[in-house]
């Protein structure tokens, strides 16, 4: 199994970093896509629910009330979209910060594992 272990290490410190970068950038795009940041910005002022009036010869108060309701819906849309966009951007930011740690941990993980094994061994000896 020595062949596997040595190939693993050579992979861990070469190819795996390429894979990790691709994975991190994929997740970054996924977060932006999941929160639909682009689409929500583009349709920021679209009413939340479309109240389409199908009647003809509308009276003034009907037109006014439709106008008011549409704008209330627009406002609701803006609030919900703002909330989701902010959540999305925060998530994206947090993910980018975490990804720095991921790189570090990934680099160190073989050492960390060895360290834990060593500590465990020491503990067992002490017992």
């Amino acid at each position, binding site marked *: *199994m020595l*062949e*596997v272990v*040595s*190939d*693993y290490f050579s*992979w*861990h410190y070469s*190819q*795996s970093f390429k*894979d990790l970068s691709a*994975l991190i950038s*994929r*997740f970054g795009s*996924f977060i932006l*896509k*999941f*929160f*639909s940041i*682009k*689409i*929500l910005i*583009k*349709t920021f002022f*679209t*009413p*939340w*629910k*479309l*109240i*389409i009036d*199908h009647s003809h010869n509308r009276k003034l108060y009907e037109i006014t009330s439709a106008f008011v309701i549409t704008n209330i*819906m627009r406002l609701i*849309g803006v609030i*919900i*979209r703002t909330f*989701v966009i902010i959540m999305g951007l925060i998530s994206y930011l947090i993910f980018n910060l975490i990804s720095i740690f991921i790189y570090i941990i990934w680099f160190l*993980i073989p050492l960390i*594992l060895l360290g*834990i*094994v060593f*500590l*465990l061994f020491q*503990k*067992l000896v002490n*017992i």
Partner: protein
Amino acid sequence: MINRDILKKYGALLKLEKHFPHRNRRKIKRFLSYVLALSALSLILPSLKLIGVIITAALLISWIKLALLELYFYSKYDLLKNEGLSFSLLSLEYDIQTSTKSKLNALINNEIGIVLLARLGVLIDLKILDKETLNQTVTNSTKYEDEDKNVANFIFNISLGNDATKEIFRKHAVSEKQIKRSFSMIETAFDTQIESEKWWSNENLSQIKAIGDDWAHGQTQILERYGRFVSSTAAISVDAYKEEIKRVLVVISKQHSPHAIVIDDSDAGRTAVIEGLNQKLQKDSLDASSKKRIFLIDSNIISQNSNSPQQFESEFSKVLYEAARIGNIICAIDNFPIFLDSTKNIGVEAISLMQDYLKGNVLPFIFLSDSAAYYQKIQPRNDIGQYVELVQIKIKDEEALLHFIEQQVQIDEAGYGVFYTYQAIEAVFDAIHRYFSTDTYKEKALDLINEVSVVVSQSKHSIVLPEDILSVIEDKTGIPAGAISEGEKDKLLNLESLLHARVIGQNEAVVSISQALRRSRSGISKTDRPIGSFLFLGPTGVGKTETTKALSDIFFGETIPLTRFDMSEFSGEDALSRLIGDSHTQNQGLLSNAVRERQYGVLLLDEFEKASKEVHNLFLQILDEGFFSDVFGKHVNVRNMIIIATSNAGSDIIMNSSGIDLVNNKPQIIESIVNRGIFRPELLNRFDGVIFFQSLSEDNMQSVVNLMLKGLGKRLKEKGIELVITPEMVTTLLNRKIDTHFGARPLNRLIADLVEEKVAEGLIAGTIASGTKITFIPNSNNEFDLKVLE
């Protein structure tokens, strides 16, 4: 043998897979996850704290190690795949190459090898071979090094060098194609498994629905009420419908009239196209805001919520208006012809409400329909046809059909716990072509596979063999397809003598028909043509129709009557529309209906020469391809029928041919028929055989009289009356002058007049009753006197 470069690059991965395969790693990792959770709980107890920490840490390390190993595996697996290499094949080869056992033994004990050999149907036979045979050196492995990329060569080289295994492979008729496709099924299953495990892959992440997708253009109340947006994750496999999905996408992307009507007879097919299209729209769209969504209108809900035609009009108009207003919607309506009919019933012409949208491109429509309803109700309507493009689900893509069958088989294998050999998969493929109408291949394949899986899962064995497929076919269609029974075997082998018991003379006809039937039932005849097709030429009354009837009774049984058409009735201009249906009057075709009703048996076309040219052209296709389309576009399968056309054409030559060898003069007689313009040569060539019926000789006539009298005797016996036939009776009947132009036919009339009439009189007068024995004595008028013997 795996080359050095690959071994250098992936040797460690292959070694890992050999000694600690992915499947086992996953199992252990999952187990560790549970144990880890339990040990973490133990940390709560103060008394177990120290030991708990140690165990948890140890488990955690093991879990992380396994997880890292898995990541290493996935990464290498992707690299290997990107290089166009097959992981399954390499790991199989590596295992065999590094095994201490013989190659054959290693193959039988390898995980992939086991599945492959089982799929080829040879595993059970190989497993019972003794150790010595299994360890025998494979002698012809020299080519193997050069052809390691071809799995079929690899397997053949291992298996065919040994006489015992060679025999097993021969017995199961294992072909190169079977090995390649079986292996490809294993590869695909493994690939799919790996891809589904990688939740972080692009493919899997894109399946997760984004929060704001539906918010892009605002929600509307009316749309929510009267339909649903098609789901972006398809519930059924859409791979088999790639071509159709592409076609619909092209149609709905047009600037002018972007409306399509999708025709398929199966609900599954139509749904697959819509779901597949939706997936493609979601995937291909680069900009989320331009993403089109398919909205499936539920016409039933609109009808249910409408109390009056006016209300329906108003609600339906609102749905269309809102869908158009939102801007990224494609409107789909299932069972469109039924929808139009039901709206018509409540007094609304729905199409006029849609007219404005059909003329423009703001709101693309996809209508769904089955073919019969489409051809009956939509095709004749120009107000729809001019805006809508037809997309018919293809039927001829054999590769797609085989792939579809393979996929469905694997789904059923997981669901029912059965296992299909590749020979059984091929049997499904062949059966679909042979036994079912050709426009519903995929649906029929799905039905058949499901039915076979249920039947086999309820039986004692779980391996599906070709025989299981054929026996289900036999149950479903009534067409003998399974193993040939003893009785049937006797019938087939003695068909000539059985036919001769009813047909006098006409040896050529009897032999040709018998041979065609044996070929068909043994499964070696072409499956894309009728069982047999013959043109019987000869004067009237020489046994053409009788031969056909005898064949039908003997082979197909008296329960399956002959389907008979007098083709002299189909000589006019309306002949074709009477046979295959009329789109104007909506009348169904006589031929299409008759064949649909009884798709197994004999189709007799009397006086074929009198049918119109168009009808002859129709039969050109039928004889060649074994199916035809009725006027409504539905395919009618005649591949399980024997088609016999009879004709008097050239009978003058045949009648004057006493003493001429008809068989040797056949070309000249056929040429004269062609020259007279009765049949075109291409039509004659389509028949499996053009058979001449000779005029009956005196000896033949005597046999015919005997046969007819025996027939009468049999009918009387049913009434308890015994008829004694004497040589004098036969001679008297033959001595009566009859017109030989009509062959044996006048004899029927003669027997009716001279014999049957007397029996009838006797029965009415009471001189004959059940239990009476009678005979007929010739009198001086060359007629008969009835004599009661007992």
